[in-house]
């Protein structure tokens, strides 16, 4: 193995990544995504508004979880403040609407832009820290945003504000339940696909490398801070989009959409579903909200068993729901 003898025709191993993964887990993933599309349609067809809204809620939170997964699952950055981006996205719909500007073409870019800007400013500071300090500081920034919106008397303060009509897209009318569902599902699909492209790109390799071994990345010549900050901004902007959708779903906006417990829920969804997998956070959001719904129907003391169940599943199911799906069909 001396340096001189490099073979002439080396065949590098090229492998195109696959969106739905490989093997049998692929089928299950497609099946779940198809169900997530079909069941709300059936609910709508049967005139069941509750289940349609419930499904849309799952989808909106899944978008937020997908956005968090980019930095948490792939980047290894444990952000405990993602609810802030949801809140910013929601108020980016509510506040202009309150002043009579109802165009979705204003609301949605504003939600993405402001959430991205908030991510840029807070990320620039938070990413100077590591580990527990990063968790704490992202949470602190989110709490600052929470109290900021809570203090806006003009926009309802802690009473919240009503959104009298949904964002106006012009061409399509999302006041219609089905149309709104289709919009949310499309946004989720786009976010999943974007994440898939990003994590497999050069940028994604760097992001994952920083997660795997940051000192090594620096030694190789990467400015790890800049790459992480970029990922943080993309993640925040994507989460702002989820916030704008959630505002339209609820027709009502309060600072409660952005409490720290919401940030915790998002983290749970990501980890429960399988951090660092493309569809994991979607599975996580589905599982989380379904279990919550079922348990709360049985008992008003649902929070305790729910918490225990979540902790156990995170501790004992390796790779989350996604890992379960992959393994279940491998064995």
């Amino acid at each position: 193995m001396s340096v001189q003898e490099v073979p002439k025709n080396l065949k590098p191993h090229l492998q195109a990544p696959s969106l739905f993964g490989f093997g049998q887990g692929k089928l299950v993933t497609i099946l779940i995504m198809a169900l997530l599309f079909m069941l709300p349609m059936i609910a709508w067809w049967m005139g069941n508004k509750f289940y349609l809204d419930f499904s849309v809620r799952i989808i909106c939170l899944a978008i937020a979880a997908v956005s968090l997964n980019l930095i948490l699952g792939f980047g290894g950055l444990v952000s405990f403040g993602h609810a802030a981006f949801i809140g910013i996205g929601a108020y980016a719909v509510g506040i202009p609407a309150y002043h009579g500007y109802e165009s979705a073409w204003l609301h949605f870019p504003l939600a993405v832009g402001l959430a991205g800007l908030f991510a840029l400013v807070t990320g620039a500071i938070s990413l100077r820290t590591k580990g527990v300090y990063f968790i704490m500081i992202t949470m602190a920034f989110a709490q600052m945003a929470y109290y900021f919106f809570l203090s806006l008397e003009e926009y309802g303060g802690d009473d919240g504000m009503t959104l009298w009509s949904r964002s106006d897209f012009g061409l399509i009318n999302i006041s219609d339940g089905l149309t709104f569902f289709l919009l949310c599902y499309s946004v989720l699909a786009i976010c999943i696909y974007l994440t898939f492209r990003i994590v497999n790109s050069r940028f994604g390799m760097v992001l994952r490398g920083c997660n795997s071994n940051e000192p090594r990345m620096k030694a190789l010549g990467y400015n790890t801070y800049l790459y992480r900050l970029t990922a943080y901004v993309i993640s925040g902007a994507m989460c702002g989009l989820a916030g704008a959708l959630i505002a339209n779903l609820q027709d009502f906006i309060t600072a409660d959409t952005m409490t720290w417990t919401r940030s915790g829920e998002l983290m749970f969804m990501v980890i429960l579903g399988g951090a660092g997998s493309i569809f994991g956070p979607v599975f996580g959001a589905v599982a989380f909200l379904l279990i919550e719904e079922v348990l709360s129907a049985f008992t008003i003391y649902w929070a305790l068993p729910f918490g225990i169940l979540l902790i156990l599943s995170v501790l004992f199911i390796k790779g989350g729901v996604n890992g379960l799906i992959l393994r279940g069909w491998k064995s």
Partner: protein
Amino acid sequence: MSEVLLQVEGLKKSFGGVVATDDVALDVRLDEIHAIIGPNGAGKTTLITQLFGEQLPDAGHVFFKGNDITRLALHKRASIGLARSFQITSVFMDFSVLDNVALAVQAHEGHSFKFWKAATTEFLLRENAMKALAQVGLDGRASNMASELSHGERRQLEIAMALATNPVFLLLDEPMAGMGAEESALMVKLLKGLKKDRAILLVEHDMNAVFELADRISVLVYGKLIATGTPDEIRNNSEVREAYLGEA
């Protein structure tokens, strides 16, 4: 004598009461392997971290090709031609062997703010990574995970990653640490082939390897350089024998 690539002047670094680098001056020339030897805790790793920018010295200067790089940011050092390997193996365990090196190649090819095309389908990136792997004889293991490699293979991977950034100056921190005799012999052979058109600063405990490889040797004891010279000069230096070689 060939061109001086790296020059160190009056380097000092202390941690509390411990003086880890005590007024160190040395140079490393093109086409040369300059070895640093010394007992454990002598300050060899600390010296490397200062040359590579991971730690700042308390005083003194590091010049590379005549430019003062003492305070140059760590992530800018690869682009001027510096690369290092770590005493404790530092690779991306959850990446494939090829992906490990591809990350190094990618680092050398400018910024990575490219968000769309799958990196694993970029032919040139993969091919260059394969070449670096072939240089260290690891191309047969390209599709294994780094975590599946033996200790010796991981050391080889480290070198491949350093080579992939196309460095003119290599800082190697005990590349043979923990290797068996056979693996060490392979590494010696590999390093011999690497010094052409490059300069290597080699920190190593394996004395057979050092005396076989080094063009010059510097001896570091308690942060101080007590001697620099050819292998023969060092072998016959009484102060060195007393302070270090004698012990072994």
